[in-house]
């Protein structure tokens, strides 16, 4: 037999592996291990999320964040209103309109959401 022929024959023989009689049992064992690993991973992620949530919530309560956010919100609304009045007196109709300052906040919020979506898309593309 030529060298190449020998190599091809041996490759063929290796590829011709006999089917094990317990092939189904073996597959079940592998699947059980995968299921166990999956369940353990879910428990671990859940536990980590719970611990993180508890720590986060306790930090929020302890730092008195809500009252600070309320104060900051009132202050920023005041600054924004005065800024708009100074920069664009012609936009007076907007502030005095039926929606007023809420409309500006809504537009600003939508702009932030749009920016977030664009940023996510860019990260996905990268």
């Amino acid at each position, binding site marked *: *037999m030529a060298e190449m022929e020998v190599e091809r*024959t041996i490759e063929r023989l*290796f590829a011709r592996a006999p089917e094990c009689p317990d*092939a189904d049992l*073996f*597959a079940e064992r592998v*699947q059980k291990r995968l299921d166990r690993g999956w369940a353990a991973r879910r428990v671990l992620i859940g536990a980590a999320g719970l611990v993180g949530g508890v720590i986060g919530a306790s930090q929020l309560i302890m730092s008195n964040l809500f009252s600070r956010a309320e104060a900051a919100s009132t202050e920023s609304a005041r600054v924004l209103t005065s800024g708009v009045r100074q920069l664009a007196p012609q936009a007076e109709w907007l502030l005095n309109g039926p929606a007023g300052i809420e409309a500006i906040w809504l537009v600003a919020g939508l702009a932030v959401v749009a920016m977030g979506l664009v940023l996510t898309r860019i990260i996905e593309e990268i």
Partner: protein
Amino acid sequence: MSRAERHRLSSLHDVELASLAASGDRQAFGELVRRHGSAVRALLRRMGMSAAEADDLAQDAFISAFESIAEFRGEGAFGGWVKKIAARACMRRIQKDRQLRARLETADLQETVEPSDPGRRMDLDEALKGLGDAERLCVSLCYGAGLSHAEAAEALNLPLGTVKSHVKRGLDKLKARLAPEGEAMEGRRGNG
């Protein structure tokens, strides 16, 4: 798993099953294990592992394959991809076995090739038993797992020249032992 679901999975191609497995479908991966488990276990046994060791290693190899299934792009056969994972896992285990490691490095290069009984037709498993550990491993890695000589050298942590020598001597021995089968194959082709 219902019979219908199993029937549906069994009709899918390996690449489709791998794609489902990549999205977390463990039953699709189970079908891949069912299809290729025997071949992987046979390869590990041919590499010199006992039946129990081969089964353990094959299980580990399939778990590793599931964890890195996203890396399988369907460019080659799924079976070949898993066999490479299994062969490398086997090599890592062998690296830890100092006695076997020493035999790999000091295999007697002057060992003669015994001619087989020409009247007896041997199968591959029987023929592989006539090879030394190093030869069997190198031949199995290159012709069973589809590794190149360089990849086998890296997996075995041996010089490339040593691996090539083991493969050459292993092939010569197999050629001598499998000659009746080769001739029979040639004869069948000539007659058909």
